[in-house]
C-alpha cells in the first residue's frame, strides 16, 4: 500500500551510486508549485490573489473541519519523485475556471463535465509546469490522467496553499510517496 507524506526522505537515506540528480527540498518544491500555479492562472488570464498563511486565515476550508470544497482533482506523477498534485475548488471558483479555460461565452451553460474537465486540465497544466521547473532533471517524468478526488470530509486542512479567485477559493496540495528516493537508487 502506498503511503503519502508531506516531506521528503533525506537523500542521506539513499544509498547512492554515482552522482544522484540534485534533490530539491520539500520547501523548494512547494515554492515551485506555488509559482507553477501562478504561471498557469496568469497564462489563462485568471485574476487571483495568493492567500498568505492560509492555515491561519480563519477561512472555513482551512479550519481543519474536513471541508475541502466542492470539487477536487488530482494528477499523479512519477519521475524523480512519485506523488500527486491536487486542486480543490468551491463551486463558484470551479465554474469560473471552466468558463475561462474553455473560452466559454457568457450565454454558454457550464455543465458538470465542463467543470471537471477544466479543473482536470488545470491540474495537468500545473503539474506539467512544475515538472519543467523542478521535477524532471533526469527526463524520466510521466503524468497520469486527472482523477476526481474526495473533497468534503477529506481535509481542507490538507491545503498547503490557497488562491482567491473572482468566484471563490482554490486550494492546492502536493503529496509525495513516503520515503521516496531518486529513481534508480535504493533506500
Amino acid at each position, binding site marked *: 500500500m502506498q503511503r503519502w507524506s508531506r516531506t521528503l526522505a533525506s537523500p542521506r537515506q539513499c544509498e547512492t551510486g554515482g552522482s544522484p540528480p540534485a534533490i530539491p527540498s520539500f520547501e523548494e518544491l512547494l515554492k515551485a508549485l506555488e509559482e507553477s500555479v501562478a504561471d*498557469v492562472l496568469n497564462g489563462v488570464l485568471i485574476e487571483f490573489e495568493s492567500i498568505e498563511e492560509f492555515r491561519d486565515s480563519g477561512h472555513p476550508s482551512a479550519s481543519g473541519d474536513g471541508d475541502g470544497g466542492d470539487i477536487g482533482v488530482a494528477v499523479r506523477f512519477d519521475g524523480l519523485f512519485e506523488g500527486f498534485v491536487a486542486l480543490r475548488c468551491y463551486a463558484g471558483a470551479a465554474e469560473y475556471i471552466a468558463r475561462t*479555460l*474553455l473560452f466559454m461565452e457568457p450565454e454558454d451553460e457550464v455543465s458538470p463535465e465542463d467543470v471537471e474537465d477544466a479543473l482536470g486540465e488545470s491540474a495537468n497544466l500545473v503539474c*506539467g*509546469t512544475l515538472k*519543467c521547473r523542478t521535477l*524532471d532533471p533526469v527526463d524520466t517524468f510521466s*503524468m497520469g*490522467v486527472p482523477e476526481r478526488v474526495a473533497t468534503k470530509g477529506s481535509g481542507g486542512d490538507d491545503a498547503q496553499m490557497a488562491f482567491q479567485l473572482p468566484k471563490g477559493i482554490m486550494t492546492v496540495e502536493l503529496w509525495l510517496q513516503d520515503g521516496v528516493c531518486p529513481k534508480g537508487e535504493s533506500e
Partner: protein
Amino acid sequence: MNKILIVDDSSTMRKIIMRVLRQAGLHVEEFLEAGNGAEGLKSLMESPDVELVLSDINMPQMDGVAFVQAVRSKLSAEQLPMIMISTESGNSKVQSALDSGANGYVSKPFTPDTIRAALEPYFG
C-alpha cells in the same frame, strides 16, 4: 484554412485549442483530432489534405517528437507546417521537436493573442 489536425492526449485540451482558435479569429472549416502521434499519423494518411498540425509533446504510445520525425520523413515543413503546443517550454524535448522539423512552438497555457501570433502566418 480548411483542415487542421490537433494531436493531444487530453480531449479537454483539444477542445480548448479549437475554441481558442475561434476566439483568435482564425477560421477553420474542419478540425481533426488525435490522442497521440500514432493516431495523428493515421489521420494524416486518411486525410492528406490537412493544412496544419498542432501537436502536444508528451503523449502516450508516440510522443510529439517521434510524431514530427515520422511526418518529416514524408513531408517537408513547407508542405505541412507543424506547431508544437506544450508545457515543456525550455525543455530539451521542445528543442528535439524543433530540430526534427517542427515549424514552431506555443507554450501552454496560452491566450487567443499568443495563439494568433504563432499561427497567423500559416493562415495567409
